[in-house]
């Protein structure tokens, strides 16, 4: 295995780490949007979850309790969104944005009040975070050429990375192979038909948003107690919006969404390695140009290769039973 092969494996490794929160958040968005509820509040829910995870992990020393707290907080925020948008037919973009602004302010404020460290939580020790998991046989296979190196890279991530990887087929299965999934897709396309069939539109959307909360919570927890070690103000840094972009990019389908997340993450990993690199004939590329790369690529791909993004038909429209 040549040096370039190793480099590629390392890049893939970095891609997986960066993509994990995006994948979880994008799948969360998929549940909401497929049911017909716009979810621009992914960012805020992730932020709330990452704070809850870090705060609880700090106090209890257990990452699992932190994870539970993150999921509960994120589900609670999803329910706020659901009450505003589904029960009271509020504007879904406004409600989502409100969640973002609320959490951007509330999380550092609570952190300040509870931990007095200027809007951060204390740094977490090794026991209070999700540690890398070494998969079985990773060491035994290590001497095997190619396979050993590849399996060595698959092994050694934290539990949330594997959960994210498994959640993609799981979500696809739920969406395309279960009764709930069929109804979910229907309610996002044609809620009248669903209602006529005697199924509660609001009930379905509530359940979709509960699933949304769980996944968003996992995504937020990844940032503060798995990849990072503590909550910092605005630590999501636009990942919620990026996940939403990936969802649209992936045309609201699980597998293409996963690929979109991986693409975003790969360009991110690429730009970290391209900085200061000297290309033959071009010389060193300015940092700014490289950092713009993921965005340029996104625009090019969206404009040229993806084609028309077909949103669920009923998205953004509150369902009113009788006019």
């Amino acid at each position: 295995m040549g040096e370039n092969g190793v480099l590629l494996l390392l890049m893939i490794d970095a891609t997986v780490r960066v993509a994990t929160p995006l994948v979880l958040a994008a799948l969360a968005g998929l549940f909401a949007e497929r049911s017909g509820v716009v979810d621009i509040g992914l960012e805020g829910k992730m932020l709330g979850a990452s704070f809850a995870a870090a705060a609880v992990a700090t106090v209890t020393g257990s990452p699992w309790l932190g994870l539970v707290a993150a999921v509960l907080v994120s589900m609670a925020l999803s329910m706020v969104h659901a009450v505003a948008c589904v029960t009271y037919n509020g504007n879904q973009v406004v409600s989502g944005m409100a969640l973002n602004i609320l959490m951007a302010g509330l999380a550092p404020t609570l952190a300040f009040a509870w931990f007095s460290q200027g809007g951060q939580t204390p740094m977490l020790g090794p026991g209070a975070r999700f540690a890398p998991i070494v998969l079985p046989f990773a060491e035994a296979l290590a001497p095997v050429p190619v396979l050993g190196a590849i399996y060595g890279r698959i092994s050694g991530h934290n539990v949330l990375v594997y959960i994210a990887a498994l959640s993609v087929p799981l979500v696809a299965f739920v969406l395309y192979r279960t009764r709930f999934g069929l109804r979910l897709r229907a309610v996002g396309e044609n809620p009248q038909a669903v209602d006529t069939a005697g199924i509660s539109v609001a009930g379905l959307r509530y359940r979709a948003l509960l699933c949304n909360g769980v996944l968003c919570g996992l995504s937020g927890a990844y940032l503060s107690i798995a990849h990072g070690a503590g909550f910092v103000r605005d630590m999501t840094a636009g990942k919620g919006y990026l996940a939403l972009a990936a969802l649209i990019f992936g045309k609201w389908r699980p597998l293409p969404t996963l690929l979109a997340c991986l693409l975003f993450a790969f360009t991110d990993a690429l730009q970290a390695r391209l900085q200061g690199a000297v290309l033959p004939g071009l010389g060193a590329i300015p940092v700014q140009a490289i950092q713009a790369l993921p965005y340029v690529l996104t625009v090019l791909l969206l404009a040229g290769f993806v084609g028309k993004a077909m949103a669920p038909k009923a998205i953004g429209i509150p369902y009113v039973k009788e006019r």
Partner: protein
Amino acid sequence: MITRRQGALAAVAAACMMVLGAGAQAQEFVPALVFDMGGKFDKSFNEAAYSGAQKFKKDSGVDYREFEVTNETQREQALRNMARRGATVVVAIGFAHATPLQVVAKEFPNVKFTIIDGVVDLPNVQSVLFKEQEGSYLVGMLAALTSKTGKVGFVGGMDIPLIRAFACGYRQGVVAVNPKAEVFENMTGTTPAAWNDPTKGGELARSQFDRGADIVYAAAGATGLGVLQAAKDLGKLSIGVDSNQNHLHPGSVLTSMVKGVDVAVYNAFKDAKAGTWKGGIQNLGLAEKAVGWALDDNNRKLVSAENEKKVNDAMADIVSGKVKVVDYRAGNSCPAK
């Protein structure tokens, strides 16, 4: 009746006078501090300023006012509010305050302003600059002396000449020890948000460790916390910045490039109180003991006596002028690679 009313009025007036008098007295000396993005507890740059101000509070018994900037537009407001509400001396942390301070300092010619890491050429502004390249040179030497792979890394915060000066000094130090050494250099971003993105910092550090670096120097405010964490997680070494960060991960932080922001803040407050505060530009380096490298119980085991001596000898050479460390900001270029 009239006399009673007059009496009451007089009493009210007297009370007002007393309140005003007390107010005027409180206004005699009010120090104020405006932090940079990244927050007071970034364990690095801002925290150094905070500890300087806390020391002043403890020594003098005078409390100070403070504000943490969380977005760019707040800088000018914060400076103006501090000045308007009667601050005697306002210390602004970070180069980005230079532009708003240019405006605010003109509006309040009687208020003393001190800016750290920036230059504002006005009579009532004291600009404090540091020779970060000198401190970075020393930690660069130590990195090259300690590295087993001959490859070391640097993660900067926002891509600005100041951070390039850190990187350039570091490179010069590395190359002075090992001319063949490779230095990986990454900047986190081009906006002030780059000071507060530990996730990205950790990812950049990992990319450098992946390429064979075994020591990474973080000059990135709170973003650096992610760098230090990544080094700890991977069993590698890191170098902290601004504050002494050795205690964050004992045994994993090789050393810290300490910058005397705390001393600068303390002195600005103390001098203003004593009436010896002067405007103008100060450029502080190793000779003034304003920058340096940190050696304490937490990293004692990582630094051999031999390496310690080499670094301290280089420090003496820089102070005496025998070794010249080039400042990136002087010509916007770096002699080392």
